[in-house]
């Protein structure tokens, strides 16, 4: 099977752009991706677009045609909503369309405007990814939900707030050279431990920031890339998606993410690789504990062993299993609907040798992107490989 290629990618800087509209953010990213790819915009056959809180943040539903228009495309456009995994889900559908031969060129992407509604407004908007009746009405916020999982994890496997602080420190380190990252500042373990509590045991530095931004990627069939002479060495060779019970209370486990494990198993089987083959990973670290759960779900660590990975330096760029070289959601920022495609963009640039850290992982051939919605009631996993 010839695998769909990532022919171009584009991002806005991630950060606080309170006054910029979602459509302007996406236009910047989408046009950048088209320019990066060299694809004739007239060849684009569809837009698959991820967005989560547009109704609450901008009073704007029905965003997909608006976004197609914003990048100058007159194509069928569909919005995907899977909370924070919205654009991961969009990528998956694009990959399946390209594989089936239904299309040769698809623009995928996402955007989110969040800071204009403030911290309380964004906390409220994010919370609706949980079960309204049985979680939100019990005061569950997103940091709160991950705090519930963190405490359950600590109790079962051990682990401390200091272990989590090392995840934050590492991801801040990784973001330092990333010109698109929101938080480009070195922090210490003490900074993280001294920060105000958000939902005990998680503090401010355990949480990703609230972010405005957009991402886009031009995905093409391998045949199209070859015919047109595009330099697009990175293919998406595996895709997986799974769901879990919406509410934490209804799950078998409070300290695992089975949906991510299922999505990973599917993606690995699809790509005919295993966790041992993975050279670099971008995972959904909306909270520090989420990175721990993610690397265990992906099989990069056994259950209960991911907690020490950052402290031991293993997931640092200098370690054996670099995780979140972009800075992750924690430091790069997390414009919710844009995150899944931003991860694809980060892995692609890394494997192409065009990222700040590429020289440090110059033998990397296989990357994996893990995008999660809610408390991982939705998960998508994609395997990207340098094609011979």
């Amino acid at each position: 099977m010839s695998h769909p290629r990532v022919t171009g990618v584009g991002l806005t800087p991630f950060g606080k752009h309170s006054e910029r509209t979602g459509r302007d953010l996406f236009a910047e990213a989408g046009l950048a991706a088209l320019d990066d790819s060299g694809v004739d915009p007239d060849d684009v056959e569809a837009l698959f677009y991820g967005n989560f809180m547009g109704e609450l943040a901008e009073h704007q539903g029905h965003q997909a045609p608006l976004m197609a228009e914003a990048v100058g495309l007159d194509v069928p456009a569909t919005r995907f909503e899977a909370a924070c995994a919205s654009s991961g889900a969009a990528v998956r559908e694009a990959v399946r369309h390209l594989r089936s031969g239904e299309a040769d060129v698809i623009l995928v992407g996402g955007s989110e405007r969040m800071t204009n509604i403030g911290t309380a407004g964004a906390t409220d908007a994010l919370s609706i990814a949980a079960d309204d009746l049985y979680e939100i009405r019990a005061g569950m916020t997103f940091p709160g939900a991950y705090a519930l999982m963190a405490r359950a994890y600590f109790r079962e496997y051990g682990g401390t707030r200091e272990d989590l602080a090392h995840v934050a420190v590492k991801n801040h380190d990784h973001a330092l050279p990333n010109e698109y990252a929101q938080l480009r500042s070195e922090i210490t373990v003490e900074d993280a431990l001294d920060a105000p509590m958000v939902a005990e045991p998680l503090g401010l530095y355990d949480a990703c920031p609230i972010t405005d931004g957009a991402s886009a990627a031009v995905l093409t069939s391998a045949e199209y890339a070859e015919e047109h002479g595009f330099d697009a060495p990175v293919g998406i060779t595996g895709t997986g998606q799974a769901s879990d019970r919406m509410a934490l209370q209804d799950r078998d486990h409070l300290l695992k993410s089975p949906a991510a494990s299922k999505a990973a198993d599917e993606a690995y089987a699809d790509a005919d690789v295993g966790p041992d083959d993975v050279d670099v990973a971008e995972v959904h670290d909306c909270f520090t504990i989420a990175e721990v759960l993610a690397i265990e779900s992906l099989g990069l660590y056994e259950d209960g062993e991911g907690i020490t990975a950052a402290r031991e330096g293993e997931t640092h760029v200098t370690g054996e299993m670099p995780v979140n070289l972009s800075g992750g959601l924690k430091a790069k920022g997390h414009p919710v609907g844009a995150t899944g495609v931003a991860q694809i963009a980060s892995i692609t640039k890394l494997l192409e040798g065009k990222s700040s850290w590429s020289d440090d992982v110059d033998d990397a051939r296989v990357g994996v992107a893990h995008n999660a919605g809610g408390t991982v009631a939705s998960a998508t996993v994609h395997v990207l490989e340098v094609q011979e």
Partner: protein
Amino acid sequence: MTDKARDGEYDDLLDAIEDGEGYYVECASGHGWLPPRRVCPDCGSRELTETPFPESGEVATYTTVSVATPQFSADTPYTTAIVDYGPVRVTGLLRGVDPDDIEVGMPVGIEVGERETTGDRAVVFRPR
């Protein structure tokens, strides 16, 4: 509190808890859920029977929230807990205990309280 339509079986359950007759629904295989459920998502059984909550459950995990949504702003800091009632787990506000004294496994009973911010009803646990 806004004047809005009841949320069916959810509000029925809260009424029942207020009357000391809280229940969950359970399939023949012993999988428990909170209503509304027409089918057991674990085994597909559509034969679900209302079963009373046990006298007390055990705190499975909890967090004390400092940064809340606007609907809980005046409640902060408050504690949200997931409580294990055997075949079913329930999420609610844990009150009547200092956050420093909460322990996983501690026995709690279920009742209905009000959110301080909005006056809306909420599931509340208290130590037994």
